[in-house]
C-alpha cells in the first residue's frame, strides 16, 4: 500500500479538535426537576462521574474518531502497490461529420464513458478524436472525472477523411506504455477487422441527400460573371425529389427540383451574372430544402469574387503597348511601378504582377515571394543569352484558358530567349504557345496555388502588340493568374489554413444569419487554424479581406447507408469497474456518519 498524498497525515493533529469539540458540547438542554437532592447525592457519591459523564457513551467519540481516521486515509489517497499488470487504453472516438446524425454521437460518447467507467485503479486511458486529422482529446489519465469531462466537451466536427492517421497515432501512444494495451474504436460503422482493436459501432442506416460539391469559375466569355457548379447525390434506399435553392448574400436567386433515384448523382450548373456581383460579399449558398438524415451536407458554400477590380502591378520601363493593353480591360486596376521602387514583398498585395522586360537582380520564383507573376521578355527561366530560332507563333494548346478568343494569326518574332523550365516536380507546366517547336509562352502552376506565366520575348520584339489578340491575351493571362483567388477560397473542413505574413483569419465561421448580412468576423488570429466547421471564414490581409468557403464535400460522410450498431461490444469487459480505495474509505466514513447520526438522534450515543 502506498499513499499518493502522505501529507494528509499531518492533519491527524485535528483529532485533538474532534475530541475537544466532543467534550465541549455547547448547548445543554435545560430541564426542570422537582429536586436536585438525588443528583447532588449521586455526584457526591461518585465524583469521578463528573468527568466520565462528559464522555457519555464513548461509542459516539469512537465513531467520530473512526470517521475522522477514514477521511484522513481517503485524503491520503492510498494506492495498491501489489505487482499487477497495468493496462493502457486508447479510445478512438469518431468525431467526423457523419457522426452528427441524430443520437449517434451521443451514443458514441456514452459508449466511451462506459469504457472509462470500467477503469481499474492502475489503468490509464487516452482519448483521441477522428476529425479528418487526429486530435488528442485527453492524454493518458486514470482520473475518471477528468476523462468524463473531456468527453462531455467533445462535439462532432464537419470534417471527413480517414481514420488511419488516428489509429497510427493511437498505436504509437500505446507502444510508449508498459503493460497491456487496448485500442477501442467507437464509430458508426465497423472498420475492417484489425488485430488488437476492439470496435463499438453506434450508428444506424439512414436516408440522406447531400451537396457533394459546389465550385465556381469565371465565365470564359465574361470573366466577371461566375459559373457555378453543384454536385448532388441521393444516398437513400428510395427515390426522392431534391429541391436545391441558391442564394447570394442571403437573397435566393434560383431554385431547381431534381427527381433522384436511389444512389443517383446529379450535376447542376448556373451562371451568376456580373451585375449580381457588383456589391455584397459574394456569399453563395446552395441549400437542399428537404429534410434528411444529416443537416451539415444540405448546405454548400462558395465565396464568389465581387465587383472589386483585380489589382495589377506593372513593373518595368515605360511600355505604352502593355500599359494600354492592361488598361483596356475594365476589370483591372493597373498600378505602374518604376524598377527602382520594387520591394520583394509587393507581390502579395496584388492579384498579378507584370514584369515587363525587367526583373529584380537574381530573382527566381522563390525569391519573388508570394503572388502571381507575368514575365514579359526577361524571365526567371532564361537560359543565358541563348535565343530560339525566330519563327511565327503557334498555338500549342488551343484549349488553354490564356488563349481563349485569341487568334494569333501571323505573329513574327524578332528574337526570343530560350526558356529553361524547372524540373523539380513542384510545378505543373503547360506550353500554350510555341515558336519553331520551342516554348515561348509557358504557364506554371505551383504549390499553394502559385501561378506564373512567362513569355520568352519582349513586347517590342514582335508584332504581337499590333494585333487585336494582344489585349485579349494579356487580359486572359491576368485573369488566369488571379483565378487562383477563387480556387483558394474553396476549402474542405479539417484542412489547416496557414496565414501569410500580415494575414489574420477569423477563429470561427460566420453564423448563417451573419453570412447573409455580411457581418465581419469577431476574433481574428494570426496562427494556423484547423477548419473544423463549415462556413465562411474571413481572411484579413494588410490591404483587403477575402473569404474562405469551407465545406465537407465528402461522399463517405454523407452516405449513411452503411452505418451499423453494435452495443454488445464491451471493451474492458470483466475489468469490474472497481472503486479506488479512497472512494471505499469515503463510503465507509459516510455510512458510519449516518450510523452515528442515527444513534445520536435516538439518544443511544447522546
Amino acid at each position, binding site marked *: 500500500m502506498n499513499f499518493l498524498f502522505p501529507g494528509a497525515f499531518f492533519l491527524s493533529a485535528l483529532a485533538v479538535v474532534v475530541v475537544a469539540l466532543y467534550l465541549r458540547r455547547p448547548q445543554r438542554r435545560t430541564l*426542570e426537576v422537582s429536586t*436536585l437532592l438525588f443528583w447532588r447525592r449521586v455526584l457526591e457519591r461518585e465524583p469521578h462521574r463528573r468527568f466520565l459523564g462528559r464522555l457519555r457513551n464513548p461509542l459516539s467519540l469512537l465513531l467520530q474518531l473512526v470517521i475522522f481516521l477514514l477521511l484522513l486515509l481517503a485524503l491520503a489517497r492510498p494506492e495498491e502497490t501489489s505487482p499487477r499488470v497495468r493496462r493502457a487504453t486508447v479510445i478512438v472516438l469518431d468525431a467526423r461529420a457523419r457522426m452528427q446524425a441524430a443520437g449517434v454521437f451521443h451514443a458514441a460518447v456514452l459508449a466511451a464513458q462506459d469504457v472509462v467507467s470500467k477503469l481499474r485503479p492502475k489503468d490509464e486511458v487516452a482519448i483521441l478524436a477522428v476529425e479528418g486529422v487526429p486530435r488528442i482529446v485527453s492524454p493518458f489519465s486514470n482520473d475518471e472525472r477528468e476523462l468524463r469531462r473531456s468527453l462531455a466537451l467533445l462535439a462532432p466536427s464537419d470534417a471527413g477523411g480517414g481514420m488511419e492517421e488516428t489509429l497510427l497515432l493511437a498505436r504509437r501512444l500505446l507502444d510508449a506504455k508498459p503493460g497491456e494495451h487496448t485500442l477501442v474504436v467507437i464509430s458508426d460503422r465497423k472498420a475492417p477487422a484489425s488485430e488488437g482493436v476492439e470496435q463499438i459501432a453506434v450508428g444506424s442506416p439512414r436516408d440522406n441527400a447531400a451537396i457533394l460539391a459546389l465550385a465556381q469559375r469565371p465565365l470564359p466569355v465574361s470573366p466577371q460573371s461566375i459559373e457555378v457548379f453543384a454536385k448532388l447525390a441521393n444516398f437513400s434506399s428510395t427515390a426522392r425529389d431534391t429541391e436545391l435553392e441558391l442564394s447570394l448574400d442571403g437573397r435566393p436567386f434560383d431554385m431547381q427540383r431534381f427527381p433522384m433515384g436511389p444512389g443517383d448523382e446529379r450535376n447542376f450548373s448556373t451562371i451568376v451574372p456580373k451585375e449580381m456581383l457588383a456589391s455584397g460579399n459574394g456569399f453563395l449558398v446552395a441549400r437542399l430544402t428537404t429534410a434528411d438524415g444529416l443537416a451539415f451536407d444540405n448546405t454548400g458554400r462558395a465565396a464568389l469574387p465581387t465587383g472589386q477590380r483585380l489589382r495589377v502591378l506593372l513593373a518595368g520601363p515605360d511600355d505604352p503597348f502593355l500599359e494600354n493593353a492592361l488598361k483596356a480591360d475594365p476589370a483591372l486596376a493597373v498600378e505602374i511601378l518604376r524598377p527602382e521602387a520594387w520591394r520583394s514583398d509587393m507581390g502579395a498585395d496584388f492579384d498579378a504582377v507584370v514584369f515587363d522586360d525587367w526583373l529584380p537582380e537574381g530573382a527566381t520564383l522563390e525569391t519573388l515571394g508570394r503572388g502571381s507573376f507575368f514575365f514579359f521578355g526577361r524571365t526567371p527561366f532564361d537560359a543565358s543569352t541563348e535565343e530560339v530560332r525566330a519563327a511565327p507563333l503557334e498555338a500549342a494548346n488551343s484549349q488553354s484558358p490564356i488563349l481563349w478568343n485569341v487568334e494569333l494569326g501571323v505573329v513574327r518574332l524578332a528574337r526570343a530567349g530560350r526558356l529553361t523550365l524547372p524540373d523539380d516536380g513542384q510545378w505543373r507546366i503547360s506550353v500554350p504557345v510555341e515558336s519553331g517547336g520551342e516554348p515561348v509562352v509557358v504557364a506554371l502552376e505551383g504549390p499553394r496555388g502559385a501561378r506564373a506565366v512567362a513569355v520568352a520575348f519582349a513586347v517590342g520584339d514582335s508584332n504581337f502588340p499590333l494585333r487585336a489578340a494582344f489585349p485579349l491575351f494579356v487580359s486572359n493571362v491576368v485573369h488566369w493568374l488571379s483565378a487562383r483567388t477563387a480556387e483558394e477560397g474553396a476549402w474542405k473542413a479539417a484542412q489547416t489554413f496557414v496565414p501569410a505574413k500580415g494575414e489574420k483569419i477569423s477563429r470561427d465561421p460566420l453564423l448563417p444569419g451573419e453570412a447573409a448580412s455580411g457581418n465581419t468576423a469577431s476574433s481574428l488570429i494570426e496562427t494556423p487554424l484547423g477548419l473544423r466547421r463549415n462556413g465562411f471564414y474571413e481572411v484579413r490581409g494588410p490591404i483587403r479581406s477575402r473569404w474562405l468557403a469551407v465545406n465537407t464535400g465528402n461522399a463517405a460522410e454523407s452516405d449513411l447507408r452503411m452505418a451499423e450498431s453494435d452495443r454488445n461490444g464491451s471493451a474492458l469487459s470483466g475489468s469490474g469497474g472497481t472503486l479506488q480505495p479512497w472512494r471505499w474509505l469515503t463510503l465507509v466514513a459516510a455510512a458510519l456518519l449516518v450510523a452515528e447520526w442515527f444513534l445520536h438522534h435516538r439518544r443511544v450515543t447522546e
Partner: protein
Amino acid sequence: MPREDADLFDGDFLARLEHVRLQMRKRFAGTLRAERRSRRTGSSLEFADFRNYVPGDDPRRIDWSIYGRIERLMMKLYEEEEDLDVGILIDCSASMRWRSRDASHSTKFALSRRLAAALAYFALHGLDHVALWFFDSALRAESGHYRGRPAFHEVLRFLRTSHGGGGTDLFASLGRFGRSRRRRGLAIVLSDCLDSSGYERGLSALVGRHFAVHLVHVMDPAECDPAESGDLMLRDCESAEEMTVTASPGLRRIYREEVERFRNGVKSWCARHGAGYSFIIADSDFDDIILRAFRRDGLVR
C-alpha cells in the same frame, strides 16, 4: 380539585368505601361518642374486661353467671367508643406540583388532594373529627373541623382551593401543626418528603408530640427513573438552583439506586418511630391505592 374528582366520588365508588375505615395504631381518648374504641370503658357492645363490684356501680352490669360459679360480684366492662381527631396534612409545595414534560398522569399534588378527600371520607363516615391543612414552607390553610358525612362537601370545597407552591419545610410546617393541636390524634401527612433540610425533623415534631403519624409518601415516576438523558442543565423547581449533569445510562442507574435508598430510609425511619408509611407512585391506579395499598400499610381496614 380536578374535574375528574367529581366522577371519582360517584355512587358506586362511595358504596365501595362504605366498609372502609381508618385504622389506628394508637388509641386516643375522645370527647364524643363515635365508632372508634377509646381508652375508656363505656356502654358499647364491645366487651373490654371484668372488675370487682363496688358500691355505686350499676347493678345491671353485674355478671351473674360468674357470681353463680365463684360467688363473687364482678362487673362486666364494655369499651367506650368515642370519636377521633384526624388531621390530614397535604404538601402543596412546588415539587408536589411538578411532573415530567411528557407525563399524562396527574401531579403528586392533585393525587394527594384526591387521596386526602378519600381519607377524609373514611373519617367522616366513622364519625371522627376531620381537619385538613395545606403546607409547604409553613402551614398555609386550615379547613376547620368537620364531623359527619354531610360535611364531606365542605371537605371537597376546601380541597378545591389553591394554596402554596413555594419551597418545602417539613419541620416548620409540621412543628407548628403539632404545637397548635391540643388533642392528639391521627396525623396523615401526604408529601414527597423532598425537603432539602431533611424530612426527619418534621416528622419527629409530630411523633414527639404523641400523634399517631402515617406518612403517605408520594413520588412521580420521573423522579424515580428519569427518562431524559444526555447533557442536561437541571433546574430545581423550588429553589431555581441549577446543576449541569450528563445523564449517561450508568449515572441514571446510580440515580435510581439513590432514590431507592432515600425511599427505604424514609420507610425505615417511620418503622423505627412507630409511624405508618405508604409509598405511592403518582401514576398508580386510585382504587388500587385506596383499597389495597392503604389496607396493606394498615392505614385503613
